Structures are given as C-alpha cells and as structure tokens.
C-alpha cells in the first residue's frame, strides 16, 4: 500500500472515507439534537452521556477532530492541485451545460461550512472544554445545581436572531455540499452504477433532510423561547 495515499486515487479514497465518517457523525449529532425538540430530559441525558463517556471523549472526539481537519486540509490540497492542472483559464466556460453548480463549487460550500464550524466551536465546543477540563466541572449540572445545563445552554444560544440566521445559512451550504458530496464519496469509493441510482436518491434525501432538520431545531428553539 506504500504510496497509495500519495496518489490521486488514494487521496480520493481518503477524502471519501473522511466524508463517510463525517456524514455518519452528522447523523448522530442530528439524532441527539432532535431530542431537544421532543424532550429536554432525553436531550440532557444523551448530552451528558456523550460529554462524559470516556470512549466518546478520548477516542471518538479526537478521531472526529482529525476527520474534520483531514477533510478540510485534503480538500484544500486537492483544490490547489486541481487549480494548478489548468494554468490558463478559458475565456468562455459553460460549466452549467455539463455539471451542477454544487459539484463545481465544493470548495466554496466547504469554506462556508468551515466558517460555521469556527462559530460552532466558539459557541459550544470551547465552553464545553472550558467547563469540563479547565474548570474541572464534569457534573453537567447548572450553576444552581437544579438539573442538567445542556438544554438550557442550547436554548440560550438560539435566542439571538443573528446567530440563528448564520446557522440557517450555514446549513443551506451544508445541504449544497452534501447534495454533491454524498454520491461523490460513493463514486470515489468505487460504487457501481447499479447501486448508484438508489444511492443518489438516498443521498439527495440525506442532503435535504439532515440540514433541514438542523435548521428546524434552531428555529424551533428561537421561536419557542421568545
């Protein structure tokens, strides 16, 4: 396998693998978040479990971070190589004639998602890490000790319309990214055309339902607490 990940195809596989992982993570993230709509308690329980269980914290979390970073870094490397493969651009190019906008602009939808992730880290991840590992409070309880803090924090974050707006826009880009990314990952991994048609349908559904669900959650909490 030496040199595999240095080759163009090897990198495509790596890109696809990290994408599979991220798409799975997204599904799991969504599953927990949607609980907040139905049952704050269930959401709190799940969040606390994820936030304190060692395997999630010390195994899955680093893998996730690696996956995210890898996907971005490799995305940039491939983009740079792809750009250098055509030094002189066309005076007139009609990309719309043969490919979707999404497929041609993965780098831009990806950059939007990256920007969102920065916001998201500032909003949730950094405070989490701060509370748990710097202040050493692993209890997951509110300051006054009355129940878990997770739901309250979530609800609080979605009070600002600006933030909700940013989330909505980010998830639209995520949808666009997935619209191409889902089937593209399977194609890169060598999925055959027979399965491809059903996969593409499934991919489209995934690319619409999951981001739409996240948008719904944000809007739900925004309007519910006003």
């Amino acid at each position, binding site marked *: 396998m030496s040199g595999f990940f240095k080759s163009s195809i*090897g990198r495509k596989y790596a890109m696809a693998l990290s994408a599979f992982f991220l798409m799975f993570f997204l599904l799991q993230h969504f599953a927990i978040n949607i609980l907040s709509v139905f049952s704050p308690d269930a959401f709190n329980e799940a969040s606390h479990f994820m936030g304190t269980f060692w395997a999630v914290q010390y195994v899955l979390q680093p893998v996730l971070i690696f996956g995210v970073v890898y996907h971005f870094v490799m995305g940039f490397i491939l983009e740079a190589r792809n750009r250098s493969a055509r030094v002189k651009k066309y005076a007139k190019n009609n990309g719309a004639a043969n490919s979707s906008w999404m497929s041609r602009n993965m780098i831009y939808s990806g950059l939007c998602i990256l920007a969102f992730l920065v916001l998201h880290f500032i909003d949730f991840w950094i405070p989490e890490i701060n509370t748990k590992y710097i202040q050493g409070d692993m209890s997951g309880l509110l300051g006054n000790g009355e129940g878990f803090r997770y739901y309250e924090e979530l609800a609080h974050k979605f009070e600002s319309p600006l933030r909700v707006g940013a989330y909505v826009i980010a998830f639209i880009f995520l949808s666009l990214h997935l619209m191409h990314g889902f089937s593209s990952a399977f194609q890169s991994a060598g999925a055959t055309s027979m399965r491809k048609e059903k996969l593409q349908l499934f991919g489209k559904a995934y690319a619409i339902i999951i981001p739409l669900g996240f948008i719904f959650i944000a809007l739900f909490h925004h309007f519910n607490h006003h």
Partner: protein
Amino acid sequence: MNLTLKIWRQKGPKDKGSMVDYKVTDISEHMSFLEMMDVLNEQLINQGEEPVAFDHDCREGICGMCSMYINGEAHGPDRGVTTCQLHMRMFKDGDTITIEPFRAKAFPVIKDLVVDRSSFDRIQHAGGYISVNTSGNTQDANALPISKHAADEAMDAATCIGCGACVASCKNASAMLFVGAKVSQYALLPQGQVEAVDRVKNMVAQMDLEGFGNCTNTGACEIECPKGISLENIARMNREYLSANVKS
C-alpha cells in the same frame, strides 16, 4: 449566416497568445464546424494573413484528432459528437462563437488551437497493453469464451477515441475518464487479468506525473464525451486501484 468568431491565436508554445475577432459570411447551415473554419482560413490566406492552425483528420468523428473548446464546451454545444461532426445548424445568424484550445497543464498549446496530447500516449505506454507475442499460434480465439455482457462492457469502454474532451471539460483538468476507460477495457476481459495489478498502478502513477487534476465527480466529462464513456469506468478504476494496492 454571418458569424463573429473569437478565436485563440498563439504563434507558438512560448507565445503569450490572445483572443482575436474574425467575421465570416455566407456560412451554410449544412457545413460542419471545421468546414466553416476552412472558409475562414481560405479567407485569411487570400488576405495574406496566417490561417488558424487546428487539429483535425478523419472528419467523421472517430480519429479523436479534432479538439476545440467552442462556446465554453468541448466539441461545442451538441452532444455525442466531435467538433468535426458539429454542424452549423446548431448556430444562428449573427451569433458570436468563442473558440479556444483544450486547456490543461498536461495539454500544452503548440499553436493556435493545436495542443499536445502526448501525455495520453505516455499513460498508455505505462500499461495500456496485454503482453502477448505475435507468434501466429497464440491459443485459438474461441478457446476462451467471454460472456457477452463482459465483452459488450469492455467494448463500451474501448470506444474511447482519446480526444481529450474529458480533460478539457473537467474543471480540474482530470484525465480519469480516459484512464478509467483504458483500465476498464482490460479489467473486464480475462486476458487482462494477469497484468491487472501492475497495469492500474503504473497507469495511475503516470497520470499523476503528467499533472492532470483530480476527479471530483462533477460528471462533466461523461456529458461532453463524444462517445458517451460512462463515469462507471472511473469507479471501476478506483476499485481496481484499491484492490491492486491491497494485493501488493
């Protein structure tokens, strides 16, 4: 019909080059695109100017020599045709048509609309063959039955004419449809199995070395391919490549 042509002119490989406007008149809708270019060139020669250099040979859509990027698409707006089979009935009187060479780092411009596609040849030197000697007593052709399905699929991959439209259309100037088709033809046939591992590894290595971009599955190549080579060939190459790397 009367047309305005915006054509890329470049004296030689090192020249900077630029787009130049030309007018042609009385173009018949029954002409092929290259016959329209012939009219322009005859006009330029008679005016004492240098004609536009472009690659072309068979003019029946099979040799893969012609290579123009017309109005932002490889081989122009029609589907399933090469430039030589594109007919002027696809355009309207008064149209402005932009004509550029196929652009990719691995396809450097030689002159005007002529590009150097020898990178495709080098990829095939790297493994596009089955090592069989010409003895005259190789086993009988029918000694090895091949399912019609596999033979037909191999044939579909083999219809590639090596024109480079896939590279030209790809936003990444990737050659994976071309290489995928070549790898697939042999991968689908039992004769190709013996050398399968080395073939795909060597051809992909050469493809990377030539400076082609990476496939991002936009599917533009499949749409613009004059022979309709399927994206499935890229997926097959990816599988072949993975399994080759697992095996050795």
